[in-house]
């Protein structure tokens, strides 16, 4: 499974989100590769799931994979909820 975290330039907040998504997945024992990317590259990338925030989600709605929103990049609960919504974590895990 390939997960993309996306921000405007692909080197600041998407990297923070990537590290925190990896940490939530590790806690749950789930294997996935997580990459970070800028919004224009992500628009044509292949992934199984894209995670971004409400500000950039409109740029990515055309992707064929699910796109979920996380607004607080340092809140592991919100990240876990987004992964539940995408079906990657089971609810209440």
């Amino acid at each position, binding site marked *: 499974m390939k997960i993309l975290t996306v921000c*405007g330039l692909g*080197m600041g907040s998407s990297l923070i989100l990537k590290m925190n998504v990896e940490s939530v997945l590790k806690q749950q024992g789930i294997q996935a590769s997580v990459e970070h990317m800028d919004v224009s590259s992500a628009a044509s990338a292949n992934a199984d799931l894209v995670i971004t925030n409400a500000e950039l989600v409109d740029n990515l709605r055309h992707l064929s994979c699910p796109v979920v929103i996380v607004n607080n990049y340092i809140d592991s609960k919100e990240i876990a909820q987004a992964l539940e919504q995408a079906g990657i974590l089971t609810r209440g895990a």
Partner: protein
Amino acid sequence: MIVRQAISIDNPASNAAEAIQAAGQALCLAGACHPEYVQAMVASYQEFGPYFVIAPGLAMPHARPEQGAIKAQFSLVRLREPVVFGHAENDPVQVLLGLSATSSDRHIQLIQHIVTLLADEENLHTLMNSRDPEQLYQLITRVK
């Protein structure tokens, strides 16, 4: 990671652009970037919007390495009054971590350092509320 000159705790800023400039100027003062990098930080906000407001009250503005970054470093700027950036969830912004992004291993280390810092609730509370530059400097340098 951060030098004392890059911490500034009482910045007057009346809008997001001025707040981002303050975060950038603190990086410049510390020798971490050229002045054009600061302009690029503001331009990035104008182009992509306030997506870099990563948590309630906390923004991490930066630009691209080739836009004038010199070395991987953070600045910490606290605003005198919170400022609206236009973020749906995380407004208003009170604290900015300006990032001089060099896209090297050093830059990744710097982000990892900040992730570790922000993961601890007590650290986060200090970061968001302290008005003591020495306390903030000690907090950031203490985290490993």
